[in-house]
């Protein structure tokens, strides 16, 4: 769909701006790569891929919400953190049970938010801000404010963080879940209906699409993927508390936006977000190596988000 549109459309200013932006990003990346000491090393590439995996899994899940026209979720960081906590706590029941329980919890949390948004038309941003507050409160309440560590004597979870064939396990998980979701979004009825819902809600309603069910699915998938990332984050850090919330929410949203997905829904793809996640991880890594402070890193991310939102909008409008 999108590709046909690009080929037939005459060249516009917005395209030039976008091309210029991509060229600029590429130039900055290449320049940075060449001049940053320690950037072009095998171990650093692995670090980038690992960082991109944690954020990337969350971000590709989030993309379903974006495509469905429900903007984004502001509860992802909290979902990831409590998933890591629940995973490490339930490890005493065995590795498989812990993973399944955590994923089920994630799916449920997302599905409930999706129901409120889909069935009653509640504002997705505010609902997810409220859900984030609820999750933080619950997490402190149930954990008594302490961080969760894996039960003594259990080591099965270590496989989730160990390298396989030279790359950390989360990287493979990232690739596999991205491919699965990309296929689901392109090849299944669910995927196509999500695109239609995001593209035109009125038409989707007129066509009697199951809007509630689709929204439950979108938030459920996003939260399920976030919980999966939480499992990997928990296994990698072997210690989970609300401190893990960190910047996952914003990084995931930034990845989806930088990939060029239309914020208003209907246009974009899972692959775009995956690339966006790798780009964000690359830039963060480069800034870190060059000694930029926390503030500098946040600032650069913010500027990238604003510029991309403006450019994506210009391109969408020139269609």
């Amino acid at each position: 769909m999108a590709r046909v549109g690009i080929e037939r459309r005459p060249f516009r200013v917005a395209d030039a701006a976008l091309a210029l932006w991509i060229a600029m990003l590429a130039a900055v990346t290449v320049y940075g790569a060449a001049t940053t000491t320690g950037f072009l090393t095998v171990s650093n590439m692995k670090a980038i891929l690992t960082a991109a995996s944690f954020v990337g899994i969350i971000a590709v899940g989030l993309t379903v919400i974006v495509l469905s026209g429900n903007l984004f979720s502001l509860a992802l960081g909290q979902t990831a953190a409590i998933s890591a906590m629940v995973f490490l706590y339930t490890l005493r029941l065995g590795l498989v049970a812990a993973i399944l329980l955590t994923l089920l919890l994630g799916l449920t949390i997302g599905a409930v938010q999706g129901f409120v948004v889909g069935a009653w038309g509640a504002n997705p941003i505010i609902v997810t801000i409220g859900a984030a507050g609820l999750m933080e409160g619950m997490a402190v309440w149930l954990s008594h404010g302490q961080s969760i560590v894996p039960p003594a004597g259990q080591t099965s979870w270590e496989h989730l963080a160990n390298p396989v064939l030279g790359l950390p396990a989360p990287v493979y998980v990232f690739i596999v879940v991205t491919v699965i979701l990309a296929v689901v979004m392109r090849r299944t009825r669910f995927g196509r209906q999500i695109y239609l819902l995001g593209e035109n809600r009125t038409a989707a309603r007129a066509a009697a699409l199951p809007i509630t069910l689709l929204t439950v699915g979108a938030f459920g998938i996003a939260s399920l993927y976030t919980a999966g990332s939480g499992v990997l984050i928990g296994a990698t850090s072997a210690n989970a508390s609300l401190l893990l919330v960190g910047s996952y929410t914003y990084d995931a949203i930034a990845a989806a936006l930088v990939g060029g997905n239309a914020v208003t829904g209907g246009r974009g793809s899972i692959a775009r977000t995956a690339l966006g996640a790798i780009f964000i991880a690359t830039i963060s890594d480069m800034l870190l190596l060059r000694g930029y402070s926390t503030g500098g890193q946040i600032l650069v991310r913010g500027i990238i988000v604003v510029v991309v939102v403006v450019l994506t909008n210009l391109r969408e409008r020139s269609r």
Partner: protein
Amino acid sequence: MSTVERTRRRPRGGELAPYAILAIMIVALALVPVVTQYTVRTANVYDIFQNFASYGLVALALGITIIAGEFDLSVSSMYLLGGMVAVLTGAGSPMLGIAAALGAAVVVGVTQGGLIAGFRLNSMPVTLGGYLVVLGITYILGHNKSVLYDNYTVGLRLDEPVLQIFSIRSLVSLGIFVVATLVLRYLRVGRDLRAIGGDRRAARVAGVPVDRLLVGVFVVSALGAALPGALLSYSLATASPTNIGFDVLTFSATAALIGGVSLSGGKGGAVGIAAGVLSLSVLQEILAILRSPDYVSSLITGGLLVAVTIVWAPELSQWFRTTRIATSVEDERTPA
């Protein structure tokens, strides 16, 4: 069709709801001595107004953006930047610090509002980027750590009790609320604001200067975050870039929505928002008196936010109506 029905039906219960909630909170505060041995004193009322001073204006500013049909996610970092700029520039003269903080807010507001109005962008992603940019600048200005404000007397003066229950800080907030109430109710700008939130296309056709108003709305919301942020930093004699998450945002969004501001835009006023802020402030005071741990407050605020969002959800009444029809209680539908 259904929107017309809704706008006619809602106001009756909806307009009184903020005050009913406030009344419930005050009764709950009065009942505290029954549960514990604690007697409620004027100091508690002072605390409530201090809380009002710290967050009330953010709720008012956010409420105004919601009335205009937009949203500003950047208020929580603008709050921090306001404090940081005031502390860094106000060492000699506190008024200069306030002026600098407000100046920074105008720059942020004009930039965000200009982008949103000029390119017709959705305000959520723009202000999310703005949130990150402003937070990053706050970190850079503070060199990633808290900055102390040496002029302690300013904070003491700002928080000195006036008539036992007020302080300069809370009187400033209350004064601005009075002005906002008058402006929103009696000036043309108030009507125009509701118009662009209710039906933007119609407002544009009717000659409302939509773009200029939108820029103004985002300037107001940045100012409403920066001023209390600056005053609070003077009061605490410190400014911190620490990402306190969406605490300020959660509090003010909940307060505005409890105060009768509709998320679909076009509805709400300053008095209602004030009632919403007071309700939450009384609640915080009750929790403080009961010595509840922090998570209780975050559970209650989060739960309230979800609850009011559901109450304001545009399709909620429709959903219930269709469900009722499904269970064959059709009397409900007979025209009044």
